[in-house]
């Protein structure tokens, strides 16, 4: 069994799956890349307040064309709006929110996640390329729930869910839950525990493309 023959969520479906687990009234930080799509899928009726580390709490939708404000952007450097009830602040306050445990949930991408909750999402082993950490290390130490959203395997088929990360770590034992195109897994003291499979996949098939053991 390889990944090509398995049922995989596309990016929008994956974002929608993560969004199901964002409760009403949460303060949430969405990492750059795929996690930014989660906000578009939160079920109607839930009020979620999005934090962006460049100094806004209450990130609103993308502005209509022609109304963009170049000084109103999110951490992905995309134009945004300020939602009703939004606030602006400077960087040390913004990171006090993150490090100080005030944000409820962060959704991040990852290169690798280990069964002990270690996260690698900022640098590879390629030393010729300048490393860029941004706010990831501050988020993972301060936000109680770290959700990782990623493909289950690399492009070459090699596993991203490992016994131990081989890339430089972003944080130690910080990941709560991993959402991939193939499955949802919780990080527990015993290791990865299956929450659900993308319909049509068997646990054996998903285990076959996962280095770490998956507990049923």
């Amino acid at each position, binding site marked *: 069994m390889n990944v090509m023959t398995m049922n995989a969520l596309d990016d929008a479906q994956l974002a929608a799956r993560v969004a199901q687990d964002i409760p009403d009234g949460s303060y949430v930080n969405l990492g750059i890349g795929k996690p930014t799509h989660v906000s578009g899928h939160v079920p109607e009726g839930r009020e979620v307040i999005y934090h962006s580390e*460049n100094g806004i709490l209450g990130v609103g939708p993308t502005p209509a064309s022609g109304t963009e404000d170049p000084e*109103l952007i999110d951490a992905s450097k995309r134009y945004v709006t300020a939602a009703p009830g939004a606030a*602006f602040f400077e960087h*040390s306050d913004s990171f006090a929110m993150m*490090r100080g445990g005030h944000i409820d949930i962060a959704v991040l991408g990852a290169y690798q996640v280990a069964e002990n909750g270690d996260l690698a999402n900022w640098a590879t082993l390629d030393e010729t390329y300048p490393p860029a*950490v941004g706010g990831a290390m501050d988020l993972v130490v301060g936000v109680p729930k770290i959700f990782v959203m990623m493909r289950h395997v690399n492009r070459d088929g090699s596993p991203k869910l490992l016994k131990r990360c081989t890339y430089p770590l972003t*944080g130690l034992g910080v990941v709560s839950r991993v959402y991939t195109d193939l499955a949802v897994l919780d990080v527990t003291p015993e290791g990865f525990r299956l929450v659900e499979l993308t319909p049509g996949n068997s646990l054996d098939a998903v285990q076959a493309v996962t280095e770490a053991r998956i507990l049923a």
Partner: protein
Amino acid sequence: MDKSVDDLARAVAPVTDGASVMIGGFGSSGIPFGLIDALLEQGATGLTVISNNAGAGETGIAKLLKAGRVAKVICSYPRTPGSIWFEQRFEAGEVELEVVPQGTLAERIRAAGAGLGGFLTPTAYGTKLAEGKETRVIDGRGYVLEAPLPADFALIRADRGDKWGNLNFHATARNFNPVMAMAAKHAVAEVRELSDAPLDPESVVTPGIFVKGVVEYGVRP
């Protein structure tokens, strides 16, 4: 007291070769483009630039890198799409890089401005970015001792300012600008509008005590 400066060139005139220079901004928001252009014109070289990013395209910090004025960059995220000049200089070994987690960067700058000798943060504990640093375990949790990060100069961007040096900001253009104003020996601000009347004290975000000069540069990028 009158801290207003009538042109950008005079505002950056004190910057010397080899100086450390904080430059505000995140992405393309809140960057003092006018002051950076004036610094390029002024010619100071061998600079240590402290900023969140390392410039993108052909504007801002990228211009200083392109012109070979930068010896070292201290930042959190040098890989913004379009950071071609940073990448070229870095790959050629012409620019030294110190990568600092973004919150640690902001807090090191704030600590310098607030007269602190450093702080303990859980950020980066156990990672490559804490190698060689003193650590401590408090109530079972690991922390890294981080040093204050001061600078000789800060170039910042604000929305409105007055002749007392008071500043306020627009939207997410605030970012690193207030803490950088605190941490530099000599901070100068370019403002979209230099107000003849004093700013409403309730609206002041950066009090004038942190600012040496205010220059109007009406262009909002």
